[in-house]
């Protein structure tokens, strides 16, 4: 793979669990009440060093959304999704923001999140109403 272009983040940073590429700042967390197939997920106003997949219309817990999956540029593993378009008015606030699955990132203190067994993880999405 070529010479990776990585945007550097300063401060408390969430990084890719596998390759440590910085993905988002703690300061940019909008909500911690999201969930994905792997459990907890956080909504961020800004995420860097990711590439996007194809646009898809997905029915999420809060309704129909147009999203793209996002992948770490360093190792290519999927780390979450980005909201391109929300079909419901009260979900518009999500547009342009991205969700990172807690399971896929290392926290600012290097901590990881493990999906506990036996816990039923419902669908993806949530709002922080």
């Amino acid at each position: 793979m070529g010479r990776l272009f990585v945007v550097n983040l300063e401060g408390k940073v969430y990084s890719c669990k596998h390759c440590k590429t910085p993905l988002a700042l703690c300061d940019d967390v909008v909500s911690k009440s999201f969930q994905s197939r792997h459990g907890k997920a956080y909504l961020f106003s800004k995420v860097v060093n990711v590439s996007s997949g194809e646009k898809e219309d997905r029915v999420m817990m809060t309704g129909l959304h147009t999203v793209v999956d996002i992948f770490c540029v360093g190792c290519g593993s999927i780390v979450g999704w980005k909201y391109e378009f929300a079909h419901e008015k009260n979900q518009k606030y999500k547009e342009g923001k991205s969700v990172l699955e807690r399971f896929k990132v290392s926290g600012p203190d290097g901590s990881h999140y493990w999906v506990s067994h036996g816990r039923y993880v419902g669908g993806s999405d949530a709002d922080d109403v």
Partner: protein
Amino acid sequence: MGGVEDDEPASKRMKLSSEELRRLSNGSTIKETVVGSSGDLMARPLQSEGGEEVVGSKGVIKKVEFVRIIAKALYSLGYIKSGARLEEESGIPLHSSVVNVFMRQILEGNWDESVVTLHNFGLTDEKTIKSASFLILEQKFLELLDEEKVMDALKTLRTEIAPLSVDNSRVRELSSYIVSPSYGSSVRSPKQDTLRARSRSKLLEELQKLLPPTVMIPEGRLEHLVEQALVLQRDACMFHNSLDKEMSLYSDHHCGRDQIPSQALQILQAHTDEVWFLKFSHDGKYLASSSNDQSAIIWEVHETGLSLKHKLSSHDKPLSSVSWSPNDHQLLTCGAEEVIRRWDVSSGECLHVYEKTGLGMVSCGWSPDGKWIFSGLNDKSICMWELDGKELECWKGQRTLKISDLEITGDGKHIISICRETEILLLDREAKVERFIEEDQPITSFSLSRDSRFLLVNLLNQEIHLWNIEGDPKLVSKYRGHKRTRFIIRSCFGGLDESFIASGSEDSLVYIWHRGTRELIESLPGHSGAVNCVSWNPANPHMLASASDDRTIRIWGLNNLSRSVKQKEPHHSNGIHYCNGGT
């Protein structure tokens, strides 16, 4: 006859009959009837004589004007008889009679009469009349001086020239000629004889420039129009890449694609890992490439192709870039967040290592006089060293990012680097002034034009922006088409007069755009991995090099050339393959 008719469309032009022109010489209502003078004529359309007033398919060429500039061109070429014949046959005189009289008077030196005639032109601009009078009388003055008629000259100066109040400092200068006769000649060329007055035909030329073009057609007008058309054709030519393509008047200039390098002539396989960077030397005789394999290679450019000259292997980290010294005798190599090494090109020897304890270098560059080295460091500062390693200056603060290029402008004054995610710093290191290029996307790399006036900026969102960095930076063009999602992909200027933009791409193609029209003109397949960097030979507009993740470097050239390249015996297996046709 000659009356105003308001129902005529204003665009209809009047063809002057010789009858009307004779009226002109009487000095009557010239203002209204001078052909082509805009304001007046548009407002009061004159009676058309019928027949064709315009020539050409678009109907924008006024016949009278066309014939007059042709006549002028004939006279300039020396075809006096032809010029006169044209005037006669078309019934369109080159100059109105008044002007003819004026010109004769000038050439014969009838100064006072010529000034009177000047006032009969019907010019509305007082200033023009005065300036023209000044020129004529100045000539009169100087000629009188040459004839040693000092008293007459003085009288002219006092009573005729000075009252015009046109150019008082010149008047003073002229008066000094009277006092010291030698002064005038020393001001002109020393070789010139004592004659201070220029020739009368030169005076006529000066007057031509001063007077409105409708009165006296400017010298070389037809030639100027033709040149304008040729230049426009050349600038619109998207494939114009060869000096020897002469422009002909017989058909519109139009180069074919065959002038753009589009055929892989050589594949250089000496790196053992991805090649991330390459650059031709300023004289185009060498190519330097650097790789993830922690080495750099200097290649030599020959008639028949490139050959490996030196492999420079002392770094312990992948190399981020290389930089040629201004005289191409030395090369800097930069290890990514490591050290900078300076090498001698002919011997391949490492001459110096530049490092700073606890820090890593991220970029390198030379001052244009070759005396100093510049480098960006991973603590965001930029430092400057003498060749022997003595640190001269350090600009601390947010000057550079960990991933950034570094360029020094040709005048040595400005340092250019990416200082923030979306910002490029243009630092005037002497005046200590900072200018910025602001983008709304992260910047991944940039490239400076040869004349240091333009910067090509690569963005995260797959756009390449061309900025003019003289004065306040201005966005000039955008180029799109290539692919970039993860890596640093570089682009460059190149071709004749740097009329083209080339770029690498993650889809393994080499992209080439025409700089002026922004059209994508080529996307060259061949590499089997992302193309990270391209460099166009500054001395050969037909040679382009590309560096790829497939560990190879491709040398691209013209299509027709590849057919005549003979298959070379591989007598030294230094990893060079020649291609003949096909990829």
